[in-house]
């Protein structure tokens, strides 16, 4: 009877630890956008709007205000990355991006590319480029493998990118002459 009690206590503790464990995102979660949105709100009190695309993928979006750069949109987009032979998703990419709408004039393109190169070298967290529309883009991607990814990693990337964009955006605005 005493043994049963001890084992039950151990099991109870295991369940308790399991319940308190951090949220892990799963590659098999077909509504990862919703899961991440709920986590951002419940764990960090940050609200993202959401939008479903034609393939039922939910993109998270929020406007961010800053004193150093103009207001900008921040998007988080989950994308299936790999599937098994039966078509089941085995890994997903979580793309985090700043939609800067900062246009690069043709005569400043060379200078902006040089400035971006310096920023890309200086910061591990920075992945800057000029997109096909001639706008400055800033992106980071995380992969949800079969082993999962802590939801806190998405928060961490989001928070790291906000400060990185403040620095990079201010620098690039200067180069462009804004």
């Amino acid at each position, binding site marked *: 009877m005493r043994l049963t009690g001890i084992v039950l206590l151990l*099991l109870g503790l295991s369940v308790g630890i399991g319940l308190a464990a951090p949220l892990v995102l799963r590659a098999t979660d077909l509504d990862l956008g919703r899961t991440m949105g709920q986590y951002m709100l419940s764990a960090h009190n940050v609200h993202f709007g959401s939008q479903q695309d034609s393939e039922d993928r939910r993109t998270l979006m929020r406007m961010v205000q800053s004193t150093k750069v103009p207001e900008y949109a921040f998007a988080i987009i989950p994308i299936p990355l790999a599937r098994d032979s039966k078509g089941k998703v085995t890994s997903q990419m979580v793309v985090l991006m700043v939609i800067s709408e900062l246009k690069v004039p043709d005569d400043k393109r060379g200078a902006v590319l040089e400035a971006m*190169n310096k920023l890309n070298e200086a910061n*591990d967290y920075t992945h*800057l480029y000029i997109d096909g529309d001639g706008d400055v883009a800033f992106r980071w991607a995380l*992969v949800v*493998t079969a*082993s999962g990814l*802590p939801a*806190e990693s998405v928060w*961490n990337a989001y928070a790291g990118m906000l400060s990185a964009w403040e620095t990079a955006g201010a620098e690039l605005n200067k180069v462009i002459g804004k």
Partner: protein
Amino acid sequence: MRLTLAVLLIAVLSLTVAHAAPLTLQASDDAMGKTIGKFMQDVHQISFDQKPDKEGPDVTLLRTQKGGKVADFPFVIVTMPYAKDDGGKVTARMVVLMVISGIKVPDAKRGAVLEAMNKLNDDNDYTHLYIDSDNEIAFRWALVVTGSGLSAESVWDTYAGMLPAWEAAGEVLNKVIGK
């Protein structure tokens, strides 16, 4: 007695599942390079040389990668503290994976290389290319191990993703340079 046996069985099964669980890297691990090196060897049979850090117990992982479309290149994995709490305890750690290309960019080709890199950085989520201060092409990716940990498989996944990405990028950039 039967209840005890059933509960014991469940407990043993739980322990077995816990042992089979994937390895999670912990931000507090101040020898994370060693942990990653062992994981790469044990789980994926990929061996990295270990270069001890001058300060601290950690190592830098290094291996020479055979290039198919590009020259052989060293691949490095370095871990470093990223955030600390008020007591100086590491609360987040960065894992930086990088290709040391050894490809020098001539001044006359710098503009064209920056344009080509920009396109590659735009086309591929996994690509973070730049010209370093020695005028060499660098290719890097970083992962952050937060207080919630990070699956060691993520490091493998990044490493495995970077190899073909570098082969593709290196081939394009070599052409731009004229090699």
